[in-house]
């Protein structure tokens, strides 16, 4: 045979240039054996291809999906250490690279975001108080009134609601802004206290599924949740009771 097996393989894989291709095609027309070898290469490639096609149809495990949807070194904003850290660091924005991302760096980022909002004249969605980070403005309103899964009109989206082990009502949320955030807020002392805040995947469509919550938020939920997330009726009941803990209303 005039052509090596490797050459015919490369032809079958579409790797040859125009001239070599034309030569082989000419030879194939004259010699059925050459055509058969090429066909065998193509058939094998197709079989190998289709043997693994099923993997593409499998659902991607949540563990992997969440990894690709959030910073891997979890810039969880540790709200306690944040205050302590804030005075120390003022890293320039260009240095925010993943290896350096830590609770410390993230807290600086958070400060910068709040600052940016202030400069644009928007009211920041949260404020640092003596009791910790507390929802304000639109986020506060959404957490108080918006039902889970509804789209609302602003940047805040409530994910789902549940009871904390300690009895407080808690809700997950997304803040859809230039640097999207997601977090967990719990109703304490008539305020929504932000217990976890983490960088979130950018908003992809109209509906942000709960699965897009950063791992840090989901872990905080796992640690805090008593029972199951609320269904619609339980959520409406809690909202209409002003998110007051049952038996705790008088105080």
């Amino acid at each position, binding site marked *: 045979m005039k052509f090596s097996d490797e050459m015919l*393989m490369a032809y079958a*894989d579409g*790797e040859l240039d125009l001239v070599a291709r034309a030569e082989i095609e000419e030879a194939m027309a004259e010699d059925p054996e050459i055509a058969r070898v090429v066909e065998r290469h193509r058939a094998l490639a197709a079989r190998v291809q289709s043997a693994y096609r099923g993997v593409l149809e499998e659902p991607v495990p949540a563990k*992997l*999906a969440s990894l690709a949807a959030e910073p891997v070194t979890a810039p969880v904003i540790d709200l306690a250490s944040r205050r302590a850290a804030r005075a120390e660091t003022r890293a320039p924005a260009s240095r925010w690279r993943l290896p350096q991302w830590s609770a410390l760096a993230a807290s600086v980022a958070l400060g910068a975001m709040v600052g940016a909002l202030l400069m644009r004249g928007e009211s920041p969605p949260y404020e640092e108080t003596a009791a910790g980070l507390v929802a304000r403005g639109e986020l506060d309103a959404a957490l108080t009134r918006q039902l889970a899964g509804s789209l609302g009109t602003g940047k805040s989206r409530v994910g789902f609601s549940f009871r904390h082990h300690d009895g407080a009502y808690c809700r997950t949320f997304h803040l859809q802004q230039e640097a999207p955030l997601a977090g967990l807020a719990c109703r304490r002392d008539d305020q929504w206290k932000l217990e976890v805040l983490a960088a979130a995947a950018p908003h992809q469509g109209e509906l942000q599924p709960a699965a897009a919550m950063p791992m840090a938020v989901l872990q905080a939920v796992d640690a805090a949740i008593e029972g199951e997330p609320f269904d619609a009726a339980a959520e409406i009941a809690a909202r209409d009771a002003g998110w007051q803990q049952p038996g705790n209303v008088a105080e």
Partner: protein
Amino acid sequence: MSTPTPVDEVRAQLGELLPRLRRFARVITRNVQDADDLVQAAVEKALSRAAQWRPDSRLDNWMFGIMKNAWIDEIRARRRRERVHAPEEAGSAVGDASAEARDIALSVQAAMARLPEEQRLAVALVLIEGLSYKEAAETLGIPIGTLTSRLARGRQALQALLGGTGEAG
């Protein structure tokens, strides 16, 4: 904050790539659990080294290279620990298919599992992931001639293992 960091860009593309990364991992590890562990390790590595990825290059090929290296490291570590290879777990990747198609897929996976590592990598990148010879050679860090001969030998071995049942005519 307006310019996305390399990490943001890599992450934004990774989500869509995950099914293909899982497939590639399944081919080279031959085991569902190892495969997903490998994808996880590779994604973590990629995010931590995102600054090294050139945005004008293909992220999938870059990821395949990271996965290849991570898997080779893992194999060496296992050999050092003298651990037995995890049992091959064919058949998990055939998806919805007729019994006949499933049998064919299983036999191909079993044949692939018997290829030497280097041939399986070449076959996985070119025949399954559709990389060009040049891209596959770059991903594996080998000359294109080496890639071509590994691919040819891998194919011959598959052909021998599978017999002529896939032949048309």
